[in-house]
């Protein structure tokens, strides 16, 4: 397909890899933010094309992974309530809560449905006025405009049976949490291209300046990632720390203004917990009045429910780039995609799941 295939050209990728090797003089550690990028890096073996001085570590950019256990438990309680149609993106169904997952609720007769778009849930609410329809709104800035449009349209159509369980998180506060941690290893970032498609690039200037890290807004195909790494290495070797845009075919500096306007109309910035990381100030979105009438936590009385994260899982360290998946003692043995212990093994975009799927035996042997 156009705008995909040409960015997977193997010869061009090898040439980029040579350019990177020629530029690299010292060891550097670069973090890619987005789970989609992590997936592409491991799937296409991009990390194996890079010189040994470069280490790519994988960031917290998988919204499924960072949704806290507490919110999964709330989703399970709401989905099991009589009369509820619980709608979710497919990858949330296998995410384990404290005791079970959404599949288990569905198996017991709960009406849990996979939707492609939040607008599908609005259509269900219109078609079933006698039922309460709840959409599990998970996602980063990329997904927020779709969720915002859903609740905006439902509100205008006075669909009082439409609710959102909101788990929207924001990327720049998580980057700042990583950079300000005493454990931080990150010297340069590949920022998440589609997040920037919505929000633009202005938020990253202050981060690059304050923490002296280059930030390269990067796309998702192999050549995008290789060019992103090249631009990042060039800045590191030259001692620069600026914001650059590799993904200019989809990202404008100001972002998508109509989308930002609807996000501001519907949401307000709130503190959010990140699974495996903890609470990060001003790192998420919550509904603002009058749209908070559609807040599922309030409607179903689960707002005060709290769950502690299990201590045995090291996914928090993986999400912050402190550890590689294979450095976890449970990787590939007690923790697999079929029986995930934690966030990063759960979602197909999680770093642990990507290593398990594409590195298979090699990763498991390396882990021992």
């Amino acid at each position: 397909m156009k705008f995909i295939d040409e960015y997977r050209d193997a010869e061009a990728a090898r040439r980029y890899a040579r350019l990177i090797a020629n530029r690299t003089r010292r060891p550097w550690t670069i973090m890619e933010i987005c789970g989609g990028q992590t997936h592409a890096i491991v799937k296409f073996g991009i990390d194996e094309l890079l010189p040994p001085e470069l280490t790519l570590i994988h960031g917290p950019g998988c919204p499924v992974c960072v949704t806290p256990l507490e919110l999964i438990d709330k989703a399970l309680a709401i989905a099991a309530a009589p009369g509820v149609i619980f709608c979710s993106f497919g990858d949330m169904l296998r995410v384990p809560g404290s005791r079970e997952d959404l599949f288990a609720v569905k198996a017991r007769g709960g009406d849990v449905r996979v939707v492609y778009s939040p607008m599908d849930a609005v259509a269900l609410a219109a078609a079933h006025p006698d039922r309460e329809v709840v959409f599990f709104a998970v996602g980063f800035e990329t997904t927020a405009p779709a969720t915002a449009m859903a609740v905006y349209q439902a509100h205008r159509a006075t669909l009082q049976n439409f609710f959102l369980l909101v788990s929207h998180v924001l990327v720049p506060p998580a980057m700042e949490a990583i950079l300000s941690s005493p454990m931080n290893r990150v010297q340069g970032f590949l920022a998440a291209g589609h997040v920037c498609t919505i929000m633009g690039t202005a938020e990253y200037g202050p981060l690059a300046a304050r923490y002296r890290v280059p930030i390269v807004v990067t796309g998702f195909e192999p050549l995008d990632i290789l060019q992103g790494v090249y631009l990042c290495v060039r800045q590191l070797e030259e001692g620069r720390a600026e914001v650059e845009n590799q993904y200019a075919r989809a990202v404008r500096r100001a972002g998508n203004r109509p989308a930002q306007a609807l996000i501001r109309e519907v949401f307000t910035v709130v503190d959010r917990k990140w699974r495996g990381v903890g609470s990060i100030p001003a790192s998420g979105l919550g509904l603002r009045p009058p749209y908070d009438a559609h807040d599922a936590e309030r409607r179903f009385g689960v707002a005060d429910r709290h769950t502690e994260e299990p201590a045995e899982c090291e996914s928090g360290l993986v999400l912050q780039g402190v550890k590689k998946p294979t450095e976890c003692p449970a990787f590939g043995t007690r923790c697999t995609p079929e029986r995930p212990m934690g966030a990063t093994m759960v979602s197909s975009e999680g770093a642990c799941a990507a290593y398990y799927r594409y590195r298979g035996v090699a990763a498991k042997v390396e882990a021992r």
Partner: protein
Amino acid sequence: MCLGVPGQIVRLEREEPGARTGKVSFGGVLKPVNLSYVPEAGVGDYVIVHVGFAISKVDEQEATVVFDYLRRMGELAELEAPPP
């Protein structure tokens, strides 16, 4: 999760505010897409689609930069390479 797939707008169907919709072709497969967030995009344009919403119009000039860059850097490397 933030997966965005490029496709080409083949038809506009509704033009109401908040419900600007059309059909987008992904390698020949047509899907309904909400186009409210890309008011500047019309039939023939490529857009990046995420969960049923077009979030950006693809800038076709910028799309070749990754290759132009490689070409320029390749020429530069040849100029800088030591003579055989």
